[in-house]
């Protein structure tokens, strides 16, 4: 151990010219030492994987989870500062660098605080305990007599800085899962609405986004996309492209085509001037028969997520029963800024600067694609435009790595808007069937649901587009894990919820905020509403009738209070064109964490079919709240973005490709249509913190559908709720 520590200390003091290897330490990396942290541990069970205390007593936290615009950087800084007892201003965060940050998994699934933040909290708690122990030795005092404050250990008026305490021995120790964490009652920073660290730079044009990153000698590329999803590149005429000033190269690998120019505008002009000939691929289903297509797709596996009693028999024998089918359209992420990346090959090693939410997985996929060892690929996160799941960032990164290899220069790739809307991986189509029966007392006697959804692979990922187009090595990947939300949180004696995993889905599928949870909950919570109305029950009370979980009940009761909910059992009484209603929805996320209950106020114009969501009320229990204002910001975002998805969004396509390639053909919610959002944050400081990036989104479509039913007496079972669908539902009075 001493040897290792010495090596590291010597290295850190002389960093700049050394090539360092730690043969004995498999979790260490060896690289050309051009970064100060070139030899640090990236192990998730090592304190120094996460924490470095510097001689000036400042601290760097290495986080595998990245801030996608959610405020996680600030929240994790709070967690670390709190647990280390060090001023917030002395803590900086390095995020998502495969060379220096531990692999904490993808930044997904509302797990950044719940998992990533808690790993860092435990590492900090371990460090603090070690520092206290060393201070106890130094002061010849018992550990209990040592207090930590402002980056120093104190004993009876005397103090020593953390930096002094690690000077001799470093901080090389394993994370102790049992190291005591601070009592929530003692929190100074956690639980406070600390201002976001990134916002001042973002409002003044100082923030460095991925799109701002530049390397000396860098050239610009644009990828030229096929005219069909799987069209083959038959030939290329680049004569006109070559005449564009600053033209550097045409890159063609299989069906991957790109142009490179000295300037960005040159690359854009060259991409417009090049004349590829593509095969006439027409393998997409007809859009107006999409749901037949999904229903008729081969099922590769079926899985019962819940199975109790005998719903089939009860449904057969019951007098009062319902059935309904729901569908949810294909969505694009629609990140406001396009995907962008820079890559450079140097001495056999490739470095890629990327806005990827999954740098460690990206490194694996890139290594496979380029046939190099993972150790020769480094991915470094730089924040991009917000992404809400795995969008095109990783694909742009693969584009850049491939093109940079061919032209042997640093390359910057930025997608155009049509690339983003057309070629980011999509939120797949969801089709859901429900059957339910009521008993004489107005309780649910039987519930059966079946979801037709994409596969659930062992290792979830999304294929890199460049690897696919360029016919380079890659695993045919599936995102999976989109069955969540189908299993219901209610007490039902005869219950079966079944996921049918389909062998195929029309577009490269991905996760978009609350993936599956949103779509499945749209079905489950709409059907819950249908049963409530069939039972002539108030939909709020009907949910409580079937709910035991006290935290879930409290959430519903508090949203009812917040929204001044009055029992709603009758149909709309409004006259005139515009009718109003309100709907409720509830989730216990994945049945194991964050509770959310919402009420949506809606207006429907009976003449035009247009829906306006005027107000959302939300009660939210994610356990311990790290940063209340940050949480509110996330909840507002969840609601507003999902109102947009629910009312407006649907990609359109012909038999070859996506045709909604801009914001006019794929509109999103704008300021005049944005609802008010009123929140009740249920803080439980002594509980574990759970995620908040997704759960609130998952209840939005059902709450709106239920509000529309309340207003209009018609049931919307197909997202998005376009005026056409509203008028059609009114006409057929389903």
């Amino acid at each position, binding site marked *: 151990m001493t040897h290792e520590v010495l090596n590291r200390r010597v290295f850190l003091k002389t960093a700049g010219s050394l090539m360092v290897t730690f043969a004995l330490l498999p979790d260490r990396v060896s690289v050309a030492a051009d970064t100060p942290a070139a030899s640090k541990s990236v192990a998730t069970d090592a304190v120094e994987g996460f924490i470095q205390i510097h001689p000036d007593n400042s601290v760097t936290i290495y986080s595998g989870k990245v801030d996608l615009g959610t405020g996680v950087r600030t929240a994790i800084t709070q967690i670390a500062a709190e647990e280390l007892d060090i001023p917030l201003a002395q803590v900086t965060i390095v995020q998502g660098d495969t060379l220096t940050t531990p692999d904490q998994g993808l930044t997904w699934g509302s797990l950044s605080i719940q998992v990533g933040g808690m790993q860092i909290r435990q590492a900090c708690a371990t460090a603090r305990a070690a520092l206290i122990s060393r201070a106890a030795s130094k002061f010849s005092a018992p550990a209990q007599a040592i207090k930590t404050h402002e980056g120093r250990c104190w004993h009876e008026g005397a103090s020593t800085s953390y930096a002094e305490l690690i000077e001799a021995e470093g901080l090389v120790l394993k994370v102790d899962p049992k190291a005591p964490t601070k009592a929530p009652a003692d929190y100074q920073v956690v639980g406070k609405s600390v201002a976001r660290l990134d*916002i*001042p730079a973002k409002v003044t044009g100082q923030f460095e*986004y991925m799109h701002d990153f530049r390397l000396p000698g860098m050239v610009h590329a644009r990828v030229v996309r096929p005219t069909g999803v799987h069209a083959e590149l038959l030939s290329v005429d680049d004569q006109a492209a070559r005449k564009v000033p*600053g033209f550097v190269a045409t890159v063609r690998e299989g069906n991957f085509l790109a142009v490179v120019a000295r300037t960005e505008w*040159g690359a854009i002009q060259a991409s417009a001037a090049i004349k590829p000939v593509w095969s006439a691929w027409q393998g997409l289903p007809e859009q107006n028969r999409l749901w037949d297509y999904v229903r008729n797709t081969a099922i590769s596996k079926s899985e019962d997520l819940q199975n109790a009693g005998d719903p089939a028999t009860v449904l057969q024998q019951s007098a009062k029963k319902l059935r309904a089918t729901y569908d949810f359209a294909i969505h694009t992420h629609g990140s406001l*800024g396009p995907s962008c990346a820079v890559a450079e090959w140097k001495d056999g090693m490739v470095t890629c600067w990327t806005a990827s939410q999954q740098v460690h997985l990206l490194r694996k996929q890139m290594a496979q694609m380029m046939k190099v060892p993972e150790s020769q690929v480094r991915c470094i996160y730089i924040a991009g435009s*917000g992404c809400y799941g795995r969008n095109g960032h990783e694909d742009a990164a693969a584009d850049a790595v491939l093109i940079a290899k061919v032209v042997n220069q640093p390359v910057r790739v930025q997608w155009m*808007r049509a690339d983003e809307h057309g070629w980011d991986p999509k939120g797949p189509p969801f089709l859901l069937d429900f059957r339910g029966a009521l008993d004489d007392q107005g309780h649910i006697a039987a519930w059966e649901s079946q979801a037709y959804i994409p596969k659930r692979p062992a290792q979830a990922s999304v294929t890199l587009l460049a690897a696919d187009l360029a016919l380079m090595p890659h695993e045919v990947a599936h995102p999976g894990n989109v069955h969540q939300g189908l299993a219901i949180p209610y007490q039902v004696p005869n219950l079966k919820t079944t996921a049918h995993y389909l062998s195929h889905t029309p577009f490269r599928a991905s996760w978009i905020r609350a993936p599956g949870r949103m779509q499945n909950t749209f079905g489950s919570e709409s059907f819950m509403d249908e049963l409530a109305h069939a039972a002539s029950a108030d939909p709020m009370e009907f949910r409580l009738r079937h709910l035991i979980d006290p935290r879930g009940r409290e959430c519903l009761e508090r949203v009812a209070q917040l929204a001044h909910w009055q029992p709603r059992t009758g149909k709309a009484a409004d006259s005139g064109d515009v009718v109003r209603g309100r709907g409720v929805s509830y989730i216990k996320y994945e049945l194991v964490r964050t509770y959310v209950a919402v009420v949506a106020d809606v207006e429907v114009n009976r003449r035009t079919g247009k829906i306006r969501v005027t107000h959302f009320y939300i009660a939210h229990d994610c356990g311990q709240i790290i940063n209340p204002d940050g949480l509110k910001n996330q909840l507002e975002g969840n609601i507003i973005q999902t109102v947009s998805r629910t009312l407006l969004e649907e990609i359109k396509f012909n038999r070859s490709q996506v045709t909604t390639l801009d914001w006019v053909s794929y509109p999103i919610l704008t300021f005049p249509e944005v609802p008010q959002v009123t929140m009740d944050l249920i803080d439980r400081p002594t509980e574990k913190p759970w995620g908040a990036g997704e759960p609130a989104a998952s209840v939005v479509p059902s709450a709106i559908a239920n509000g529309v039913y309340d207003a209009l007496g018609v049931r919307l079972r197909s997202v998005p709720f376009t005026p056409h669908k509203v008028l059609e539902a009114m006409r057929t009075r389903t």
Partner: protein
Amino acid sequence: MSHSYTLKVNGQSHTVQVDDPKMPLLYALRNDLHLRGPHFGCGLGQCGACTVHVDGHPVRSCSVSVAKVAGQSITTLEGLGSPEHLHPIQQAFIDEQAAQCGYCINGMIMQTKALLDKNKHPSEQDIRQALALNLCRCGTHVRIIRAVQRAAAALV
């Protein structure tokens, strides 16, 4: 053939050499002047992320050529204020914590500046209409509305 233009940006004159007079202003601002305020969002004038002011009027810099605005007075987000000397609108956006990813915020602030230049006391409806053609994907709208209200109050 290279063309030379003088761009007056944030009170300073810069000479830029471009291959194509039709190149949109945005590329000169970002790649030649290394400004980070205006962002490429769509290149189609649909989202507003690239908004700058030209002679005091909001313009989508992705959709106006360098040649067209040469010699005119261009203001970017950086020209409004810096972290050390914040413009009241920037201060209001910080006070309301009105950003998530922040990619659209350049356009929101520049469009707000244009609104408040004309209308000192905008109603919430005025604000919503003024920003109707600026897109935000994160769903920060309600905070942005509050920030504009706060900025309006501060500027009176």
